[in-house]
């Protein structure tokens, strides 16, 4: 099969609305491709059964759900759970903590991987590149339960390695996990450390996919490495950066449940307690299904609004459509 044939076959397989064809072609298209659609059906069915139908369960956010009464039988309470979430004496503090920790994480988890990917992309020695890449994304696969224990040890004020290094520079030991401000710093830094290698993969893949002809042309024109990065690499990974940033905005109210749960303690409640840990304690106490659902719904709502806004912005400012 030669190149032209291949392209023709590809064009035939594309949905007609991409090509703006007429009715006859449309019918033709369906006749040819209906088996593919049939193959898609099971996946679609699974998606409907396990993703869309359960959405209706969200109505328990507006009920005082009791398992033995069922969704239909439980009493209706309207917006009580949402009111409770917003008027609880702790809520302000908890939402504020969530936003601060999450916003910092969002920014650093976006820029550190980009910078790292750009730097690693400049490395010419393949072996070194591979080794570094493997090493930095390894922490991603460790769970916070394990890392929590490790961090407790290395950040210990009594003989923890970090404080020993600080001491050797004449700095007093810092109680990283017991001091509110330092706690936030520790949480953000350790999360970035854990995730930046893994998040960099997508940027690295994009960088590798850039047509080398562009760099060659730039080199002939006498562009320096920095100019190449600035004018070729950066603009070309921008779409992916926007996608990643937009999608992570949707999770702005997730400040990292596993991490905080494994690291926080009463000494840092004031600076480290987030929505998810609050809901966890609440749920653990009482099995409050409705309240948990209400909080989940609340978070999704905020996330949805933010995604829509950032999508509009991306289109308006960068003229880029994600979906």
């Amino acid at each position, binding site marked *: 099969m030669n190149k032209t044939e291949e392209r023709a*076959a590809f064009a035939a397989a594309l949905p007609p609305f991409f090509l703006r064809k007429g009715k006859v072609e449309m019918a033709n298209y369906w006749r040819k491709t209906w088996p593919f659609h049939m193959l898609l059906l099971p996946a679609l069915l699974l998606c409907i059964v396990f993703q869309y139908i359960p959405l209706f369960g969200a109505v328990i956010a507006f009920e005082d759900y009791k398992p033995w009464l*069922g969704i239909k039988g439980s009493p209706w309470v309207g917006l009580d759970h949402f009111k409770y979430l917003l008027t609880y004496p702790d809520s302000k503090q908890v939402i504020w903590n969530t936003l601060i920790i999450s916003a910092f994480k969002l920014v650093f988890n976006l820029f550190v991987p980009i910078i790292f990917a750009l730097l690693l992309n400049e490395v010419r020695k393949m072996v070194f590149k591979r080794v570094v890449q493997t090493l930095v994304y390894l922490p991603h696969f460790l769970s916070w339960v394990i890392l929590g224990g490790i961090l407790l040890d290395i950040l210990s004020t009594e003989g923890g390695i970090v404080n020993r290094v600080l001491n050797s520079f004449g700095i007093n030991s810092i109680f990283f996990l017991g001091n509110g401000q330092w706690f936030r710093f520790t949480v953000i830094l350790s999360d970035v450390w854990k995730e930046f290698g893994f998040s960099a993969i997508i940027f690295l893949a994009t960088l590798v996919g850039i047509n080398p002809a562009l760099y060659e042309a730039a080199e002939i024109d006498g562009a320096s490495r920095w100019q190449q990065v600035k004018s070729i690499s950066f603009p070309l990974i921008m779409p992916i950066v926007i996608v990643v940033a937009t999608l992570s905005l949707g999770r702005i109210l997730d400040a990292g449940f596993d991490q905080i749960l494994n690291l926080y303690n*009463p000494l840092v409640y004031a600076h480290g307690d987030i929505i998810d840990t609050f809901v966890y304690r609440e749920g653990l106490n009482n099995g409050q299904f409705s309240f948990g659902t209400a909080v989940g719904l609340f978070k999704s709502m905020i996330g949805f609004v933010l995604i829509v806004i950032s999508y509009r912005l991306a289109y308006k400012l960068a003229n880029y459509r994600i979906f």
Partner: protein
Amino acid sequence: MNLYFVCTAIKIETGDNMKSLFKVTKVAVLSLSIGLLPTLAACSSNDNHNSSGNPASTGSSASASDSGQAGQSTELWNQKFDPPVTITTAVVDDGTSRGNAFKPGESMEDNVNLRWMKENMGINVKYNFIVSKPEDYDTKLRLLLSSGGKLPDAFSTSGEPLESLVASGRIMPVDEAIEKYAHPEFKKLIEQYGYTLGGAKKDGKLYGVPSFYMGDEGTVMWIRKDWLDHLGLQPPKTLAEFDNVIKQFTENDPDNNGKDDTIGLTAPLKDGPFNWMGQTDAIVGAFTKQFINTSWLQDGWNKGEDGKLSWGAVHPDAKLYLQTMRDWMSKGYLDKESGIKDPAKSSELAASGKAGIMFGPAWMGDWPLSDATKNDPKADFEPYPLPAGPDGLVGRNQKTLIVGFTVFNKDFQHIDAWFAYFNKIFAKTLEQEGDPYFDPRWKDGYYEGYDYVKYNGKVIKGDFEAAGVPADQWPLKDGRSMDMRFMMTNILGGGVTIPYSNDAAIKKFLADPNAEPLTAREYDVKQMKKKQLDAHGVRINQGITENKNYFTGPLTPTMKSKGQLLQKLATESYLKIIYGEKPIEYFDQFVKEWLENGGQKITDEVNEWYAQNQ
């Protein structure tokens, strides 16, 4: 088969050209849909088998109820149900952590005890579900509740699912059944520990048969004896002496390594003063009779002189405890990181030879404290009696005595059969002379070749190799003894334990370490490490009246809506005071805040519950 063929076909064909690919896909879709049909049919017919299985079993048990009584044997230990009775139940079993529970080829659903029960008692045990995690078990129960599915006849539950089950009205009250069928000694237990049964009570009726904890681990004081000896100190008998010991441990280099790297006391304070290990309830107990706990609102309700309940953590006496801990923290006697550590983490300081004292259960002599010898072969943690306060007060908290409850489907017809088995196991646990419930067939143990073997006319229950039993007679190939609990507790849920029932056996072996174990209980106790036995001795000999928690009811409405906030407030305030971030006077402000934010309401609700259910 079909699918595999189709897939390979596509793979081969794609190599060719696009047109034939379309053809193949069409064939694929057709054969897929055809191929799926039998599978779907198989699934649904499978379902039918399952659902038809249940009515059949209930049918047989229903018919059994008509004639069951007539066919019963008269002797209490030899009840046999004819026609046989089927009891359905459910269990958590991850299949791995129970190492030596079954012989190869046997399982939870098929083992010697189930066969024995069927043959000798006419009881068939069926598992409605076996799940590998406790969370899955609770989820399963919630699903059965919300879907209106059939609950097992007898099953164990606790916490929130128990609360839902009791409220749902789909399990039966058991007061009458206990009165009618239960072992008299068990009735006495129910009476003695009645104050712990609130979790399964509604309108004054009991909705489950409790499973008890041994409750005897107590709190003892573990001290590095080698450090005491090195510094020429005596074990502290009072809090003042204790203060001196932790001072010396912190400042005088007890491990003699020339470095200032030791502290006196390690204690996890992340969850407040009370915990499962490393708890400082003994320090509280030296000042007051209050049960203090900050991280769990259902625990720590003390009975005042007026008969009213109040939460220990807001009692003014707590200030004395806080003042002491704060003092130790500021002087560095107490682990500076106590506030961020849980019990296991906190114990690492003791196990690594950095801390000289840790409070905790009697079993700590083995894990985690025996690890200390890894760093220093001379390390020697010994158990000591708790120190007395300025007024001579000594105290500790009583551990939770309730594991959970076995509850019964309200349609269950054969609670008599359940009790027949329960009483048998209970009598075996009790091992009382002349007990009419005691099954003589279980005199030596449960099953020969399982938990015991007979060799040279002697009953041998463990260390088979040392006893000279030939390898082919060992219950398990590796010579270990079997853990019978898993197969014996099938329908009994949390199992049968009698609180504090090891004490007599402990005393016996303390008096004579080489005494011959006569009962299964004595055999178990003899398995304890010497330090654990010593620690139990310390606990028994000190004879402390433990501080009790009097509220065991379900969460009150305000606990549900405000409990989390109040627990957080309490634990946070305690730590702030201990760490010196807030002055000791802050305690009064905390109490005020606590009461205003729902604490007062909760106290009222708790007292209301207590008035109804005491």
